[in-house]
């Protein structure tokens, strides 16, 4: 299929529908509004339902219901809206239901602003809701990658019966790039024999539940979830690396920031500096293994984020004390500039830090 030029938010909607998403429940918030707008126009054409809920809490619980009935379902929002959805996300994780949640991140805390930010890293990877649970978190950097990952997210959700988050920001949502819709690699998806589709008097009722009063029963349940998360860690980690073999400095960045970092690396290379990159594509599971590929001669790691430093925790866990880890970031909707990143890289390369 030929490439088409699309706005990020609309491309996410188109990818979801191509992946068989039939239901969308949401509540408006900038900078993701083009996505529900697109779904409201396009879902009815494929026999689906778009519904603007009365609140984010209502929307995520509608997702809970539709997922429990076995449907491919999605919601989207931006940071404070995702905060409101956390209760539902925890329930969905506890009840082991598949769904896709898109967060087009804006600056925070509170209502914050509407410009690009990455200050929801903790919220995305640590779980803003209660309990021992994880969500798979994808952080695409280009619109093509966004489209690919949204399509795959539905399969991953179904395969593991888990909520999957796709995290972008206002830049990903608002910009236009050429995209091509390609089928994700075929997965062997289990039948949804747990869905509440009606017994028709022929089987025992299926029950969707996250309440376990008996602590032993709950522990068994949580440990089973943990086993599932281990399998996901083995199979679903995604990342991109660049020039780790002989880098003096390795930069770690994801999403929008990784694109700015690539410009910064090109500038450094023009001056003869050797700089590597680790770009996590899954924020959870975090690509720990990528850090094993860092060369002994590397002087330090620079984490660049649009936050005051959240992913840096995972970078430190992954590097496990083998190298010093430094941080550079802008926050509140400010995007780091290549020259500022170059200056930080030079400080580390030159032993100034």
């Amino acid at each position, binding site marked *: 299929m030929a490439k088409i030029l699309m706005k990020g938010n609309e491309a996410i909607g188109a990818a979801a529908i191509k992946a068989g998403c039939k239901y969308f429940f949401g509540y408006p918030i900038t900078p993701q509004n083009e996505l529900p707008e697109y779904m409201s126009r396009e879902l009815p054409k494929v026999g689906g339902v778009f519904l603007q809920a009365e609140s984010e809490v209502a929307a995520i619980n509608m997702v809970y219901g539709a997922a429990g009935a076995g449907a491919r379902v999605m919601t989207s929002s931006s940071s404070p809206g995702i905060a409101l959805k956390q209760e539902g996300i925890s329930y969905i994780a506890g009840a082991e239901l598949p769904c896709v949640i898109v967060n087009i991140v804006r600056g925070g805390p509170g209502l914050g602003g509407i*410009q690009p930010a990455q200050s929801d890293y903790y919220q995305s990877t640590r779980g803003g809701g209660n309990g021992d649970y994880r969500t798979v978190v994808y952080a695409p950097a280009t619109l093509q990658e966004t489209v690919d990952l949204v399509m795959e997210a539905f399969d991953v959700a179904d395969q593991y019966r888990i909520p999957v988050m796709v995290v972008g920001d206002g830049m990903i949502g608002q910009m*236009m*790039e050429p995209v091509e819709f390609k089928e994700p690699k075929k997965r062997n998806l289990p039948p949804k024999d747990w869905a509440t589709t009606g017994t028709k008097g022929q089987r025992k009722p299926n029950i969707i539940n996250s309440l376990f009063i008996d602590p032993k029963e709950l522990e068994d349940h949580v440990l089973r979830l943990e086993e599932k998360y281990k399998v996901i860690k083995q199979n679903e980690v995604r990342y991109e690396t660049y020039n780790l073999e002989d880098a003096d400095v390795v930069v770690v960045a994801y999403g929008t920031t990784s694109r700015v970092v690539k410009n910064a690396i090109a500038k450094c290379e023009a001056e003869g500096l050797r700089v590597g990159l680790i770009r996590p594509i899954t924020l959870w599971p975090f690509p720990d293994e990528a850090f094993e590929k860092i060369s002994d001669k590397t002087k330090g790691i620079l984490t660049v984020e649009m936050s005051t430093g959240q992913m840096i925790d995972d970078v430190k866990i992954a590097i496990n004390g083998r190298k010093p880890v430094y941080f550079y970031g802008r926050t509140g909707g400010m995007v780091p500039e290549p020259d500022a990143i170059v200056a930080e890289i030079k400080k580390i390369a030159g032993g100034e830090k």
Partner: protein
Amino acid sequence: MEERVIMAGFGGQGVMSMGQLLTYAGMIEGKNVSWLPSYGPEMRGGTANCNVIVSDKPVGSPIVTEATAAIVMNRPSLDKFESFVVKDGNLLINSSLIDKKAERDDINAYYIPANEIAVELGNGKVANMVMLGAYLELTKAVKVESVLEALKKVFGKTKAHLIPLNEKALERGAELIRK
């Protein structure tokens, strides 16, 4: 080849569509492209701008901080973006609405009375296309034919009758540069 362009003006001057057409045309030619709009709590009559990259290489950051060219349609845009243009870069100024000259002498400034030309052509709305025509003549970032092909797709059948007018506007912009 990499063109990094800032297009700016006030809402309604067609700076977003001008950028999208360049992006679309670049895509038609198989180049790597990105289009990034400013967004925010904008008000009517406020400023609007977009960043366009057309490149032979994959696009890194879609944010243009070092512009190879800036197309400014009104005075606030000139004030804001003149400093973004790289040394020896191009600054295209809509002299119909901007009575000020460029302050820098290390860039190439071009003064294009885009609104007057558009009105001469019978439709003030094509001022953006006059500017785009001038820009394309200067940089050859994409072929004019590709822009026309993009226009066909954007306009569809109902607005196809507007294509000759837009083509004329592109040509008038180009003429000014050739002179």
